[in-house]
């Protein structure tokens, strides 16, 4: 029954997509629709580069977004966003970035649209890094347009990897600079997680130690500095992860983040999923049973009529 309801829902829900064709023009746009929803995954190839991934706070840098392939339509919109969520905070300025120049060279929009896309383009934004130190990520979203009235589906694609910037993390010269890229400070984690770190240093790193609540988890002497932790072995709540890196000269770098382990929430979600599966299966069996009985009843009625 559940499955039938879901299928019926699929059919009954009328298209609520506000697909605005012919482009929307350049502007400041949140992630997602940007005034025009594009739901179909584009086959475009997107690459993203920055002139500096470890800028000082307030330092100017450029971000280049290259797009090739995808829809053949001449309208192409590219947006640079600080998160892949349809929220106002996805506009880079919300994360502290200041766009000083967009690809037009004369405006400061995060969404830039062109009308002469011919299978390859490159767009450059100039930004000023946030004034607060930390790890920041910028993403790109590409949206292909379609001529007005065309039936062609509208395509979009995200550069989901994003570019991670360690703003204001140049550190002390000579000291290994530990940048913990994941998990981030204050994040909620569950199940098995991977702790990733970049450790730029003027001298080779002799070893790096990961500790959780002060207890050593692992020790590595070469890249990648990545460790896997099964959080189910720990109680739910706040825990401290820290990485200590020592270079061959003996200089020590250190970074610490606090994460919230929440496996109970995940378990509840999984339990709901199992319940839905069980209830749906029971509903389907019942539906089949009822339909068979109804069919047999109809047969019986006709047989009785013919008998008369």
């Amino acid at each position, binding site marked *: 029954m559940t499955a039938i309801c879901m299928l019926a829902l699929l059919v009954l829900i009328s298209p609520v997509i506000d697909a605005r064709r012919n482009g929307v023009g350049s502007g400041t746009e949140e992630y997602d629709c940007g005034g025009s929803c594009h739901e179909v995954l584009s086959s475009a190839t997107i690459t993203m580069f920055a002139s500096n991934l470890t800028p000082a706070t307030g330092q100017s840098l450029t971000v280049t977004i290259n797009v090739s392939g995808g829809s053949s339509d001449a309208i192409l919109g590219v947006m640079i966003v600080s998160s892949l969520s349809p929220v106002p905070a996805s506009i880079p300025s919300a994360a502290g970035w200041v766009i000083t120049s967009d690809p037009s060279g004369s405006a400061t929009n995060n969404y830039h649209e062109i009308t002469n896309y011919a299978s390859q383009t490159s767009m450059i934004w100039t930004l000023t890094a946030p004034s607060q130190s930390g790890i920041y990520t910028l993403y790109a979203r590409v949206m292909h347009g379609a001529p007005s009235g065309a039936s062609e589906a509208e395509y979009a694609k995200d550069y989901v990897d994003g570019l991670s910037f360690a703003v204001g993390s140049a550190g002390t010269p000579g000291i290994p600079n530990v940048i913990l890229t994941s998990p981030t400070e204050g994040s909620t984690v569950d199940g098995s997680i991977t702790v990733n770190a970049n450790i730029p240093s003027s001298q080779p790193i002799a070893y790096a130690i990961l500790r959780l609540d002060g207890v050593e988890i692992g020790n590595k002497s070469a890249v990648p500095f990545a460790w896997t932790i099964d959080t189910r072995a720990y109680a739910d709540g706040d825990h401290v992860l820290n990485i200590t890196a020592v270079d061959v000269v003996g200089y020590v770098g250190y970074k610490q983040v606090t994460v919230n382990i929440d496996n109970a929430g995940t378990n509840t979600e999984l339990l709901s999923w199992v319940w*839905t599966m069980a209830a749906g*299966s029971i509903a389907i069996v019942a539906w*089949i049973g009822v339909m068979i*009985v109804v*069919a*047999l009843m109809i047969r019986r009625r006709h047989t009785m009529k013919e008998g008369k």
Partner: protein
Amino acid sequence: MVSMSALHALTAELHAGFLTLSFICIMIVAVAQIVVRLRTRMPRKFVEWAIKVRGYTEAAGYVGAVLGVLGLLLSAWTGMYAWPEDVLLKDAVVRNKILLTAFSTVMWGGVVYIRSRFGRGLWTCPAMATVYVGLTFVAFGILGTTGSMGAHLVQGGSALDPLWNFVGFRVGANLVLTANIDALIAIASAAALFIALVIGRRYDLFSVKLGAETCQRVFKWDEPKIVYEAPEKK
């Protein structure tokens, strides 16, 4: 050593192939039945073809469904070991795929049950044939949806995306219901099934074998005959 991912890909192709064959065959039989039903208004040759074709496709549809269900169970088993548990259960698309695969398996199980329980005589009863064809149609639709989800996992998109785009369905949407609604659905369904079985027993519905003699006599069911003409002896 063959990896579980490779085995899963193999079994997925296997069940998809068998069930697609079954779906096509059952739909052909349904169309053939309509042609036979309207035989007075159809060209005679056309009706003869319909009768012949349904005889072969009916059996193929049944065998395809049986092997497809076995393939589905095998796919579920290999899929469990193909990826780590974390990956399997963390991704909403994977969870939806498993959920709909379970529903599809139950439905295809229903298709096999109906055909096994009532035999090919079910086609002589329009009501039962409608249940059989309808169930096959919905089961195949759900199977197609799970295939689309698989394509999203493997290559980030699927050929059915324009359809999902049109109906406003997101393969990554959380299809899980709340515990209260689940309980309500399960209890109501169990009660409906119980009442249906009581009615079936009360009127002795399950004891009659389906066939042209016990149904509406609107469909004839002539088995196709393979005629072998032996060469004449000199």
